[in-house]
């Protein structure tokens, strides 16, 4: 067989593999040993979607020596130009030294995919673009960090997971609670049976305002609205539709996500999956609010464990696991409480289940790009979590219970509900 040509990024990886430790490399090998921060060894990044959520990633990446941002992309001209200017300002020294040639700003993400000198991309767009861009990136040989929820539909998730497996791409889903100590510790307590068999879980997701049918407004100069809509149905432009804030905007609309199911749900359902050891499976029944008089929406696992959405949680926590012999409550900000209280200080022994440990979600992804190990939230896990978000959304929209086969990934006995497992896409943004 003819030896394939090695591209720069493959060279980067193979060099690392040949000279460095493959697993856990950054934890023990100082970068200076292998010249990891040498300009040619920096991971070259493209950033797509320069909105609110990207600002943190952008700043974080600009502050690292082991990466460099080569391109930014956004359908808002002002945003991408601003991001380009910010990047060039931070890298001005590198540019003077000749380490870095500049940052391009694109309207079309395809321009980033075409570039062989970009190793990896951040995809921080509204949900309806996640799968299309991620699959394109992986097929073009790039690694991907994609914001949560990973997908807009269940079928997209299966396709993304398969694409990652086939291409060997390192894909990290932005469910960053997995990289927070308190959440990992809570999951370890549950997984090791410290509070007995879990029967009930309460979680707070909050509520978005109802979506609206909005009047048409003129599309702002420099905004590619058609591309923003992408594969979703056409609607007249209105600023409230495309706004990326948390009190409303696109997150309220079913067209671009699963509302709170996919917003906070993608974080908390993800932690629940982790704690229950269901990362490669999921719940089997989904009940809308109001079904048989239920005050809250819920889903149920095959062993009967029930997850209640928006049910009050003890001490204002985000998630509460209730077991036969105790409780674990956990929130952001490293808040962790247990009943009995002593549980939270009990250390793990080697025979206990130790979960994947990461203290920095983006850092974990970059580390895995170098070592080619699986990150803490790979696509199969992201897909299973997103599936729970989407099935909750389907049950809510159809206002009837849904029965799910997590092995075959099929809705059982409801032909028309099954149509919701994927959404037809608007031409020409079909793939």
């Amino acid at each position: 067989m003819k030896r394939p040509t090695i591209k720069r990024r493959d060279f980067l990886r193979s060099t690392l593999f040949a000279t460095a430790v493959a697993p856990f490399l950054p934890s023990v090998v100082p970068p200076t040993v292998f010249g990891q921060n040498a300009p040619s060894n920096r991971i070259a990044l493209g950033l797509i979607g320069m909105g609110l959520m990207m600002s943190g990633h952008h700043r974080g990446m600009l502050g690292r020596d082991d990466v460099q941002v080569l391109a930014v992309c956004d359908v808002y001209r002002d945003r991408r130009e601003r991001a380009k200017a910010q990047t060039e300002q931070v890298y001005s020294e590198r540019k003077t030294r000749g380490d870095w040639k500049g940052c391009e700003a694109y309207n079309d993400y395809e321009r980033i995919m075409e570039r062989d000198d970009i190793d990896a991309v951040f995809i921080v767009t509204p949900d309806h673009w996640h799968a299309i861009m991620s699959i394109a990136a992986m097929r073009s040989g790039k690694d991907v960090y994609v914001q949560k929820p990973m997908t807009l539909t269940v079928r997209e998730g299966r396709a993304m997971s398969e694409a990652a497996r086939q291409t060997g791409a390192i894909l990290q889903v932005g469910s960053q609670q997995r990289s927070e100590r308190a959440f990992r510790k809570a999951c370890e307590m549950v997984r090791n049976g410290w509070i007995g068999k879990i029967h009930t879980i309460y979680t707070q997701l909050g509520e978005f305002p109802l979506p609206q049918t909005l009047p048409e407004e003129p599309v702002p100069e420099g905004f590619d609205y058609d591309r923003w809509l992408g594969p979703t149905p056409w609607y007249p432009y209105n600023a409230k539709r495309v706004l990326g804030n948390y009190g409303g905007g696109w997150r309220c609309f079913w067209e671009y996500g699963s509302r709170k199911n996919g917003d906070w749900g993608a974080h908390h359902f993800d932690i629940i999956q982790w704690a229950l050891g269901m990362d490669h499976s999921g719940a089997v029944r989904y009940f809308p609010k109001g079904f048989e008089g239920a005050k809250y929406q819920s889903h149920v696992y095959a062993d009967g464990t029930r997850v209640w959405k928006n049910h009050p949680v003890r001490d204002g926590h985000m998630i509460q696991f209730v077991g036969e012999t105790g409780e674990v409550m956990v929130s952001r900000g490293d808040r962790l409480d247990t009943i009995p209280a002593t549980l939270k200080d009990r250390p793990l022994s080697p025979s206990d289940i130790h979960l994947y440990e990461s203290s920095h979600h983006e850092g974990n992804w970059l580390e895995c790009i170098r070592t080619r190990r699986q990150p803490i939230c790979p696509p199969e896990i992201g897909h299973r979590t997103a599936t729970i978000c989407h099935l909750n959304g389907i049950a809510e929209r159809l206002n009837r219970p849904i029965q799910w086969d997590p092995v075959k990934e099929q809705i059982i006995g409801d032909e028309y509900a099954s149509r919701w497992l994927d959404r037809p896409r608007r031409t020409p943004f079909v793939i």
Partner: protein
Amino acid sequence: MANRIFIPTCDPIYLMKQTSLVFAAVLLLSLCSHTGAATESTLDRLIPGLSAENPQDRFAPQMELQDLAAKACRPGAESEREELAKALATKVTDATVRQPARVWMVRQLEICGGKESVDALAQLLSGPDRELAETARRALEKNPTTSAGRVLLAALEKDDSPDWQIGIIHSLGQRKEGRAVELIAVTLDRQEAQTSFVAAQALGRIATTAAVKALWKSYGVNQADAAAGLLVAAEELLSDGHKGDAKKILERLHRESKTATIQSSALILLAKADPKGSRKLIPTALSSAHPKLRTAARDAAQIAFGPDLQSALLEMFSKLSPEGKIVIMEAFDRSAERLVIDACSDPNESVRFAAIETLGRIGGESSVSLLLDIAAAGTPPGALKATTALARLPGSGTDTALLRQVSSGNPKVRATAIRGLADRNYYASLPVLIKCAADPEPAISSAALLAVGKLGADSELEELLRLTVTRGGEAAESALERVVLRTTDKNAAARKLVSATTTAAPDRLGVLYGNLALLDAKEAMDALNRAARSNDDEVREPAVRALAGSPHFSAIEPILNVAAGSTVKKVHNALLLQAVARLVRASDEVPPERRIKASLSALKAAQRSEEQTLALSALASVTDPAAAMAIQPFLRDPILKYDAGLAAVTLAERLSRSHKASARDLARAIKQAGLPEDVTRKADAILRQ
């Protein structure tokens, strides 16, 4: 049938039965037509709202219709669904209905439409309104009937504008329309890159012999798109059980493709299509220069070898490149321990490090000695990796194997073993560890003291006290403090500490009293109370300082007792009252009356104005109306009134958030106290609120 003759009968029972049947049929028909009429009238009622001039007015009817459609397509309600879909199909082609209403209704057909809606959707697909046509295309894509496919096919024949064709081709692909292969194949090598990519993907989804042939034909011209399409075809064939056909595609792709991404995808799918046949490709791929291909090869090996994976990997290990060895070690299980132990001596450093880490995951008792040697050698980064591996090493005999290494041998190795036991939280090792804490070898005793500090509790206290009293040292003191905090019987611990003070040298008393002050127990506080009032300076001094450093509110009583004593030194009085102020401020969980009482006692016991000010400020930290009452008399005190005024303002501001009336009363009292303007101005501001 031909021989059967229908003979009318006059049997009354027979006639009754027939009449009932006819009646039931008529009733059903009329019911259906009534339901149909009701559905139509619902739509007629909703349509004006769906097309309202003000888009915001459309929302409620849109949601009503959406709910109606969702309900109609519930399981077991086929006639209801059909009725609604029929009515919707009629309305969407009605030119008198305004476009926004028609678009919304077509979107419901996407959810609930069947064969009854195809003609209407076909009409819209070829109509002049592009939005309606596009919405109809999506509804047809989801429509399961064969006629929907025919309509899309006809549309592809008619229209060749690239954007439109992309949508139609995609829909035909999603539907796996075999009839469309010829037409789609024509677009495969189009100049518009997206059209050819979508066409290749669609043909891949269709995956008939003709579709695959078309893709191979294009492979010579447009390799990237065709290869991607062929991979999709192979996946489809695999999921339909046509492994042989999939295998042919994948073998050729793997052989001919020059792209690592395509090769790795082909290899993984090939492992599914032909597990045995793909095995021979895996070693080469594992030693490839491409990291992604190596990862894919490992995943392919898991599929191809199935239950024989471990033996296959063990067999190929020695023949692989260092990169290949590193990749497959991630797939090793317990059975590979011996081989991985050997790999720790591999000439390649990267392989050695990966092997050490792999042992941390799969190793057991046999790995203990080797890992201890590497960790004790202290050469980074291997030592750190070995230490981490020792902490995680599974296997039931691992802890006892480590424990055996503690008793004798090289001190560095023994100390490393002790650290390993502590990292593993192996509580059963405590009797041995506490003995090691007294070892004459400093490396061993300090490692053991650290370990006891981490794991020890009540049972280790006495011996640890003995070591602290007889030998002292930072390691022993730190271990003692951690163990004291972890004791469960605090009074028993206090007794042991008190007993140690009777024999301890004066320079050790500070440590012992300091630890007593950490215990939230009556016996500890009583002992401190006694010691702090001792006539012996060498006892009193450390006891007072320990009391002043106590983190517990229960220390307030002895603190105040000592501070108020007639013989107390001025410096001790100050130290102790500062502690009162700190504890009052920090103890929100203590009832307000106790905190108020402590503040007032401190005020009374204070020998200097600085501590009086501190006590007033502590009183002001109790956000309770009783504190407001307690502070008011001091507003009239000629010496304290200014400081009391400042503290009262702070308290009133805090109270204004929870106890408004009390805050107002206090602000008025401040105003009446005749205080300087800077204070009264603040009181005014509170009253204005």
